[in-house]
């Protein structure tokens, strides 16, 4: 596998600080749901910087989609969120990673727990689940600051309806008008109540370190086999 020159063929503003980039990558044969790619930028003097981004596109999609959140002190994300336009080119390598993946031949119930931009690989799993006609139950718990920070907001309802998925959104700061659910940080009780009842489920948790620790610790404390929980963390501790 070599670095390939990808064309940016579409950009969608996802949240006030995040964008989804649709990339056409020569020779792209799709990915497994949950995999990532590395994106590399090169300055005129040859200086390079590369970062990893989870794919949100379905496994077999012709275009690769990644969502990039602006890191204020970042080096690559400010360029990808503020600087790049449709028609520009980027170097990419991938798909990468063989652990945080869901395969259509899996038949057990699927639990997806995402925090903030950690929703991206989980949407890839949802999309792949729909595409494959898999009938295993799937549900999503999504923790997000406010409604405007919901990724894939215009698609999430349709996507989850099509997957027959149950979706629970946890707004941590404020919720849309008329919201009946709770508001506030996810706690262990909320996670275990939500997770109850799926025997032999596989769980995929992606988000900031603290969030992933909380959700995975809660499930393990409630008796879930740690070997059935896959995690992807970002940020420090």
């Amino acid at each position, binding site marked *: *596998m070599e670095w390939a020159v990808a064309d940016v063929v579409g950009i969608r503003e996802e949240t006030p600080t995040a964008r989804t980039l649709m990339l056409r990558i020569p020779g792209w044969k799709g990915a497994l749901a949950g995999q990532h790619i590395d994106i590399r930028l*090169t*300055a005129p003097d040859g*200086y390079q*910087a590369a970062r990893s981004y989870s794919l949100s596109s379905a496994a077999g999609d012709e275009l690769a989609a990644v969502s990039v959140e602006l890191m204020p002190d970042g080096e690559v994300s400010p360029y990808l969120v503020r600087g790049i336009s449709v028609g520009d080119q980027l170097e990419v390598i991938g798909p990468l990673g063989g652990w945080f993946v869901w395969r259509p031949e899996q038949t057990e119930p699927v639990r997806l727990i995402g925090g903030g931009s950690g929703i991206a690989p989980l949407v890839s799993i949802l999309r792949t689940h729909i595409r494959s006609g898999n009938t295993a139950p799937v549900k999503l718990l999504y923790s997000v600051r406010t409604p405007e920070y919901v990724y894939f907001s215009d698609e999430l309802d349709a996507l989850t309806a099509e997957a027959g998925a149950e979706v629970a959104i946890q707004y941590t700061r404020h919720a849309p008008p008329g919201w009946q659910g709770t508001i506030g940080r996810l706690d262990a009780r909320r996670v275990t109540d939500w997770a109850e009842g799926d025997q032999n489920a596989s769980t995929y948790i992606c988000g900031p370190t603290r969030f992933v620790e909380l959700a995975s610790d809660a*499930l393990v404390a409630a008796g879930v086999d740690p070997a059935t929980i896959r995690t992807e963390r970002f940020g*420090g*501790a």
Partner: protein
Amino acid sequence: MGIVTPGFFGKHREADPKLPPGQYETKDFPVLSAGPTPNIHDGEWAFSITTETGEVTRWSWDEFRALPVEDVHTDIHCVTRWSKFDTDWRGVSLDTLFEGIETSAGYTMAHSFGGYTTNVPLEDLLGGKAWVAFEYDGEPLDPEHGGPARLLVPHLYFWKSAKWVKGLSLHDSEELGFWEVNGYHAYGDPWKEERYYYDS
């Protein structure tokens, strides 16, 4: 050199000789783990070395803590492209642990609580190159970073420095560990950018 990205100039302009290719420096200490953080109770931790003939040498936590310790000041490099300079650890050298071990094996597999494994050639663990570390920055090692003890092999990408390590097994031929069968390089030299299995 790749295609020039118009309008991209980069931030970290100093070419730091301590930084392997493709890496950037972070002051943070990111956490990367494949699953939940194992909760290892006091008294549960033990470390063993199992030779290719099946001979097992085992240290309880107290026995392990009675061994001579070394302070290690080193840079660490994660395959996800961050490097962290000047980290301080305390641990037991693998040279110390191997003092009484009879082996002619060339390969090791590190085993962790939680089931994680990673393969390292034996010569990469000996000669002052690796430790079982139990302190970071003067404090007991945080569970998220592998506490109570982790392998520390700073000259390889950090996934080789198995968190929650509980033992090593010795093998005559190389087997692949957890990340190595999930797409990562069998050896993992940061200076050669041996990130993925096809970067041979």
